[in-house]
């Protein structure tokens, strides 16, 4: 539906990608600036990410948070930032490596045990992630919402 409304869309099915865990070596900052030293397909995600206007993170809620699979990719976005420090909203954050960063949208599928507090906790953390990645969280939607509505809202952003 998004494609039909004249957007260019790239979809990653994370389950099908070859992804290694971030091991916190900071090689992407001090050895090969801007690139992870462990080669895997997270570089495809990073490239698409930084050349987008909007990134939608879609995940089921498992044990009160987005999936470990999504977090695996999220951890690997570190090369998109710069090691130098900056103060954003009166807090320490990292300096931008790129001139612009895509906005965030969050699309969640509730689990059996999901309650409103879980949704609040997740949204709060993604709002923080957005500050860290030099952008803002534009929306949090549930899979239960109608797709037409979600697309309509994206189109009116």
């Amino acid at each position: 539906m998004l494609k039909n409304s004249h957007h260019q869309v790239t979809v990653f099915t994370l389950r099908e990608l070859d992804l290694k865990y971030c091991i916190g070596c900071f090689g992407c900052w001090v050895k090969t600036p801007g690139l992870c030293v462990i080669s895997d397909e997270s570089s495809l995600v990073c490239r698409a990410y930084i050349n987008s206007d909007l990134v939608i993170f879609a995940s089921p809620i498992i044990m009160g948070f987005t999936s470990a699979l999504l977090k695996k990719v999220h951890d690997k976005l570190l090369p998109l930032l710069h090691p130098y420090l900056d103060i954003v909203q009166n807090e320490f954050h990292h300096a931008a490596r790129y001139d612009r960063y895509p906005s965030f949208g969050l699309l969640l599928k509730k689990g059996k045990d999901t309650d409103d507090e879980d949704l609040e906790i997740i949204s709060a953390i993604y709002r923080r992630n957005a500050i860290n990645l030099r952008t803002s969280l534009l929306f949090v939607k549930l899979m239960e919402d109608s797709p037409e509505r979600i697309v309509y809202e994206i189109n009116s952003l």
Partner: protein
Amino acid sequence: MKLTVFNGSPKGKKGNTQTLLDHFLSGFLSGGNHTCETFYLNEINGHEVNAINFSRAEHILMAMPLYHDSMPAVVKAFIEMLPSPSSHDVQGDIFFIIQSGFPEANHSRYLERYFKKLATRISRRYLGTIVKGGCNDISHRSDWMAKKIFKSLYGLGKFYGNGGSLDQKILHQLAQPETLKGVTLLFLKTGIKLGFMRSQFDRMLKKNRAYERRFDKPFLDSKEHKVSSKQEHS
């Protein structure tokens, strides 16, 4: 008392998390007839066995670095393996250590909130979370340099060993600064504009002969594409 520890640092025994744990545990073991056992979550193959160790433990400490305002992905993968408790009877207690690179505790408060909820979810009594920022190089700092931090952790460990709870006063002191304020904030803002606080990274970049490439943007698509995609959006 037997304490079961889960270290969630992707760096395992070599990380900053371990350094903080060492000091907490030496305080804990200093009094009484206590024992502890540590499991490492950085080996993904171990999750299944570790999850069993987790459900059998009465007293649990989970410690980790902050990764993008939440838990490292390996830790989330572990949490997903935890069986939901068969009954709503309290299964034991749990507390956490979150340590981070940025100095303010506020960065870790959102994950702290998640952990408080997680405790309820797995029917464990929540004892609290030890939060410490500014830990980037703590595993390399001498006892003398990090004296105050190490002493606080030792104190927290000892207090926990004595009464099974966290000393709120030490917890509060250790977490400082909660946020940046006033003169400090002004001073830091100016310092960053002037390019201070870069020396640690510059040293490493130079050592790796990568200093000249430090501002590289390897993932940028060509200019034309960028301009056109921007127009498309507006």
